[in-house]
């Protein structure tokens, strides 16, 4: 058999890789298009601004939008400072030791645990033991625990990628460690840290199992952190699983997908602004 010329081999490999990439992107586009196709026609202004009627068969999803924003927003507000602080501590304030190894190992283990387990823990600990009940707060705390490892690890990577030379220069100019960390390291690592936080926000928004067990599935508009609230993802799950209304399920999914897309675009825009204008 004649051997392929390097040129032909190259072309074959490139086309195979192109097809694989196209398949990945294609599947994604297909799923999104499918849901938007079935869902968007039902996404009306009323749908976005009204409360559900008869378990979601009619009416809108306004309380779920509010609930999702509260639960996920609060989760990230809690997890981000703790996660970033942990990463700073691990990278800048300790030398590698058994303790840092244990913390890192713990974070990796936590990251691999299925969300339902976090849900169960949140249910037992926040909801029952601490008496928070099925509430926005229980849900947010549970999600915060769930995304914490991601934030720690992504921040840590971002911080480690900051060249050692910057630290030397900063010390060389007489800065303290804290000044070095806040003005040089966090500044330079910001894009990476930010990406981790946005990823975590996305994960919190799309989580179902963990919020079902902790934030509950009440249909009403939550008026405080101690109210139960159903998130969009959970609402979608319940609507479709219980066959309440497939069109409303698709419409809810459309809203979910679009908000995650918008969130990502906004995040990247914001990040560019933060990085472009160094102060």
């Amino acid at each position, binding site marked *: 058999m004649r051997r392929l010329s390097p040129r032909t081999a190259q072309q074959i490999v490139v086309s195979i890789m192109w097809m694989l990439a196209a398949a990945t992107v294609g599947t994604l586009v297909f799923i999104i298009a499918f849901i938007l196709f079935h869902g968007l026609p039902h996404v009306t202004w009323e749908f976005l601004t009204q409360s559900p009627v008869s378990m979601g068969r009619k009416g809108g999803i306004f309380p779920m939008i509010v609930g999702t924003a509260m639960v996920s927003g609060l989760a990230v507000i809690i997890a981000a400072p703790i996660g970033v602080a942990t990463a700073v501590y691990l990278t800048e304030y300790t*030398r590698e030791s058994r303790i840092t190894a244990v913390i890192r190992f713990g974070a990796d283990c936590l990251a691999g645990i299925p969300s339902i387990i976090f849900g169960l823990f949140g249910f037992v600990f926040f909801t029952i033991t601490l008496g928070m009940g099925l509430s926005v707060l229980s849900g947010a705390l549970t999600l915060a625990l769930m995304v914490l490892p991601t934030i720690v690890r992504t921040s840590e990577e971002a911080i480690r990628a900051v*060249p050692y*030379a*910057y630290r*030397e*220069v*900063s*010390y*060389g*100019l*007489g*800065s*303290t460690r804290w*000044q070095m960390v806040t*003005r*040089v390291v966090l*500044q*330079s690592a910001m894009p990476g840290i930010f990406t981790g936080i946005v990823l975590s926000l996305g994960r919190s928004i799309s989580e179902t199992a963990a919020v079902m067990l902790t934030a509950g599935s009440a249909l009403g508009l939550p008026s405080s952190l101690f109210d139960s609230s159903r998130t969009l993802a959970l609402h979608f799950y319940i609507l479709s699983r219980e066959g309440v209304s497939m069109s409303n399920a698709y419409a809810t999914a459309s809203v979910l997908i679009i908000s995650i897309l918008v969130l990502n675009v906004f995040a990247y825009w914001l990040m560019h602004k933060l990085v472009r204008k*160094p*102060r």
Partner: protein
Amino acid sequence: MDFKIQTQDLNLTYGKFHALKDVQIQIKPQSITAIIGPSGCGKSTLLRCFNRMNELIKGVHITGRIHLDGKDIHSPDVDLTILRRRVGMVFQKPNPFPLSVFDNVTYGLRVHGVRRRSELEEAVESSLRATWLWDDVKDKLWGPALALSAEQQQRLCISRVVAVRPEVLLMDEPCSALDPIATGHIEDLMRSLADRYTIVIVTHNMQQAARVASECAFMLLGELVEFGPTIRIFENPKDKRTEDYVSGHYG
């Protein structure tokens, strides 16, 4: 004569490795002193002793004395941040922060608590003028420092140090990442700075040492072999090892 920096029986070990052995050096104020020697002989290590940068490294142990203006820099009442402000350092690779030119130059001042806008602006102009960078960058003070050429970046790094008004400038092979023309410019700059600052430069380039330095130290395997006026070191070395090195018999 009063020396700017003076060491006595300076010894430094990295773990078990003895990197500086009984180093005695006296550095004159307002002059350029060069440290030469083959790779790994401890030039950078010695330089980093003068602003206590070696302390960032784990396992470093230092004995002996280092005096700055006659005062021991290791004495407990020395404020490390003030010491490093007085003894500034320029590194081998141009390494501006990924910030604007303005923010690079003012970094040190801000760290030391200067907030007044006018004061910062004044410092930026005078430091950039001191390094002859002002005309090149005065219109791009808010542009990214990393967009400058390598030579401009290195001059920016020198401005960044000059901005905090140090007394001593430590330069560790400041030209090794630059082409010969840029190197010439930096050397001119060093000479122009020498009437205000005490400069200690590490270099692999013996011609460079001969061109800029009035005093020269030759190191070998952690020892300060010979130290004296540059001309004498090059033309009339007392030690056989110095002679071999300056005549090119070592790497």
